[in-house]
């Protein structure tokens, strides 16, 4: 089962003089859905950027399927089976939905599977099929989020990294996006979600880590965290 597990071990990372992560460790096993929650500025996005190779850790290890991610360039990650849906979607707004999906299958390994995977994405998100000739930038936020997830699925990943999928979306649309995430993970895909919307994410993931000012403040099964009085008071608005 070493195949698709992601492990982060005592990672310190930051930008210039600013340190964002102080010895963060976490683990995502194959088939698992794991959440990383916490307030703004806790280091959640930095953590994903470290995993996807956009910044290098100052110390510590990031390994996926036995490979040291600190040593490979960012563009090789899709070939390793890691797909990153960045914060704010980062679609190509002037390409159509279908063209966005096509570039999602850019790697040599993914190209032969383009049509099959596109059709699969269209069954998952029928809305994308209706809009396939529309410019991605002209769709609603929720549709763009679905398109971004679809684009990530085109590389045939083993693990999907989602950065703030609910950001900037209406509550009803957030619900739809998380329903989709639930369906994707039922297909056996490993998922790591970074989110501020703690209540929603705890309903989708198996386990979660709470990140506060660059350190893991709590971790555990979703149900346990959701029942924890401290977490409830800080994040869920409960008592």
């Amino acid at each position: 089962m070493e195949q698709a597990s992601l492990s982060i071990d005592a990672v310190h990372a930051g930008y210039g003089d600013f340190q964002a992560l102080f010895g963060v460790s976490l683990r995502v096993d194959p088939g698992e859905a794991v959440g990383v929650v916490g307030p703004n500025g806790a280091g959640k996005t930095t953590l994903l950027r470290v995993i996807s190779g956009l910044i290098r850790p100052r110390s510590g290890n990031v390994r996926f399927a036995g490979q040291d991610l600190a040593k490979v360039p960012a563009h090789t990650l899709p070939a390793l089976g890691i797909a990153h849906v960045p914060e704010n979607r980062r679609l190509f707004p002037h390409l159509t939905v279908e063209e966005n999906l096509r570039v999602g299958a850019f790697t040599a390994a993914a190209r032969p599977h383009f049509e099959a995977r596109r059709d699969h994405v269209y069954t998952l998100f029928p809305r994308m099929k209706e809009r396939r000739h529309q410019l991605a930038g002209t769709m609603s936020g929720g549709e763009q989020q679905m398109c971004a997830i679809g684009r990530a699925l085109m590389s045939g990943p083993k693990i999907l990294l989602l950065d703030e999928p609910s950001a900037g979306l209406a509550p009803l649309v957030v619900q739809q996006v998380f329903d989709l995430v639930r369906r994707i993970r039922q297909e056996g895909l490993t998922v790591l979600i970074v989110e501020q919307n703690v209540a929603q994410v705890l309903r989708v993931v198996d386990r979660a880590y709470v990140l506060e000012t660059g350190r893991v403040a709590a971790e555990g099964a979703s149900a346990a965290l959701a029942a924890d009085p401290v977490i409830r008071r800080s994040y869920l608005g409960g008592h």
Partner: protein
Amino acid sequence: MTAPLTAGLLLVALAAVPLLGPPDYLMHVLITVLLTALAGTGWAMMGRYGLVSFGHGAFLGIAAYTMALLWNEAGLTPWLGIPIGMGVAVLAGMLLAYPAFKLRVVGHYFALVTLAAGEIVRILIVAMREHTGGSLGLTPAKPPPGAGWLAMQFDKTGFWYIALIAWALGLVCWFLLDRSMSSRALAAISEDEDAAASIGIRVTSEKMKVTVISVALAALAGALTAQYRQYLNPESLAGLGISLQIVFGAIAGGMYAPIGPTIGAAITIGLEEGLRIFFGTELTGAAPLVYGLLLVMFMLFMPRGIAGLFERRAQRRATPAPAATE
């Protein structure tokens, strides 16, 4: 009608032009249009992906001077001198582009870097005056009798065919790139480099690929222009003036359609010649003034160029009405 068939018919028609016995002046204008179109096509292959170079004139100059100096000083035929000159220009382009791409110099900053590089080449040509003749220019040596073919010195008909083949080669490169996955990767890169890298696109190497093709085509245009004119000078083959002429032509014609830069070359050169003849020596400066004003109008009101007009009409026919938005 399919594109390759249209292109084939057009090529046959153009190949027949010298048979009509056109006046020398017309042939001269047409050859100049083709060679300018080739440079513009090369430029637009980068330009349409947001890699706006204001220094492509430098590559015309590097290839042209390399070729001419090899002929004058080493007796090497331009048939070999041109590919060597193109190689040197591509090397220079790569040396400039690689650090720019690695350091993520994009947009306006990339334009400024290339602008400076173009000027450097012009200044170098002037400074190496013992070899290049400096600002006065350089004339390729006359070949020994009967060796005109070796020196690539032909009459206008001969050059018409050379220019036509070179121009067609540029369009073939355009179509091949357009059909490759690189074209989609470059479109993605031009919109968002980070997102492109995150889905496995090798940003720097894709940009380098298109730079090499673009520079090679511009270099070919430069060497052939010099060989056609049998005269090289730094102003017309390097530096800002010629670089901007390439940019204007490609933008006015439309850099998103394969035929756009060619339309642009026909317009800019036709306009230049037309205004020059119309104003004659009556009103010195009027011709460039009107030319400049018209170019400004093009930039402001037709950012996709003349080819953009046809494109929109064709697109409206090709795609069904967009789905209703809520």
